[in-house]
């Protein structure tokens, strides 16, 4: 049962954004549309997966005192890979995510999984943990972006779902909308937890 639990814990019980409050900066900044959210989620999932894999493999060779710089170096390598690949094949997405692609390096979520999980567990479990956490992060981003895109531009994945007569609530895609949305969603999750 344990491997399955390692995978599913990231999705709800230890959701990186809503429960552990990790990786907040990209979660708020790029959640203006669902498309951006999926792009960012996929990029972060790839990085957390690769870095967890490599770190769980080399954990015994890294001296304890300089482990954090080593982790950051591994993470930065994969972030560069994502940065260049996205720039080559998906330039519009790369442009709209902008500075937040290189900033995946300092996303606390990824360093936290390296330090708290991959440095203590084997390869298989680390991969499952990374996949679960990446999926949880992506789902959190999508759920924030869904609210903001529907309210702010009346669309979902660029498809119009609210009638033309709907006057977009511009505030939802501006910075304040991001703070309000995540605050209210966290409150909702607290409320659901209490009921259980």
């Amino acid at each position, binding site marked *: 049962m344990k491997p399955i639990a390692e995978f599913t814990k990231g999705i709800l019980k230890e959701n990186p954004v809503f429960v552990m409050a*990790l990786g907040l900066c990209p979660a708020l900044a790029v959640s203006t549309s669902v498309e951006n959210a999926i792009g960012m989620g996929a990029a972060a999932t790839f990085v957390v997966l690769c870095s967890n894999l490599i770190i769980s493999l080399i954990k015994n060779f890294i001296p304890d005192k300089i482990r954090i710089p080593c982790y*950051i170096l591994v993470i930065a390598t994969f972030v560069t890979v994502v940065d260049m690949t996205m720039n080559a094949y998906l330039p519009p997405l790369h442009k709209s995510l902008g500075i937040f692609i290189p900033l995946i390096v300092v996303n606390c979520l990824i360093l936290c999984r390296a330090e708290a999980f991959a440095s203590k567990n084997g390869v298989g479990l680390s991969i499952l943990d990374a996949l679960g956490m990446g999926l949880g992060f992506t789902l959190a981003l999508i759920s924030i972006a869904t609210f903001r895109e529907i309210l702010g531009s009346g669309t979902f994945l660029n498809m119009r779902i609210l009638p033309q007569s709907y006057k977009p609530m511009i505030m939802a895609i501006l*910075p304040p909308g991001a703070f309000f949305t*995540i605050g209210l969603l966290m409150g909702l999750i607290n409320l659901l937890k209490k009921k259980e």
Partner: protein
Amino acid sequence: MEISNLFFIIISAIFINNFVLVRFLGLCPYIGVSKKLDSALGMGMAVIFVMTMASVFTWLINHFFLSPETGIFGYDLTFLRTIAFILSIAVLVQFVEMVIRKSAPELYKALGIYLPLITTNCAVLGVSILNITENYNFIEAIVNGISSGLGFTLVLLLMAGIRERLERAEVPKALQGMPIAFIVAGCMALAFLGFSGLKF
């Protein structure tokens, strides 16, 4: 280089494009260290210091090593930017920590616990990358570093002041703690949106 240009960078970094409320950089310390006014002040000072130093060093690294036109190697090494910047910031933070511990134990006691956290503060790497993408020259990069740090400290202190009072407020159970902090941040962001019309 005109003084008015520098003035514009200062106003823009502190108010119009505030790092936390408009650019969404450095949210983790903003939410995490804003429970008490003193610790918020310590964190703010440390961030101003490290951001300024990081602006200086990363600009020099980019200018003399990575850039194809001005670099001493003459190769286009910009693909190494992320790795080079994060490593130099990590080294810088470590170095600053050692220097402060030796030379100013009082200051170290005040800043000590916040310094290691700053390496992974995206505001520091963010300001370094923004300096390059905005094509700032050396002076502009330093000014941008200082004023971005000031903008961060300003909203951190405001937030800490509000949260100290929130402790005694009656907040619905589900919204206690982090959710209400985000909603307060939303109200502050709304207020800062008012600056976006500023023009010179």
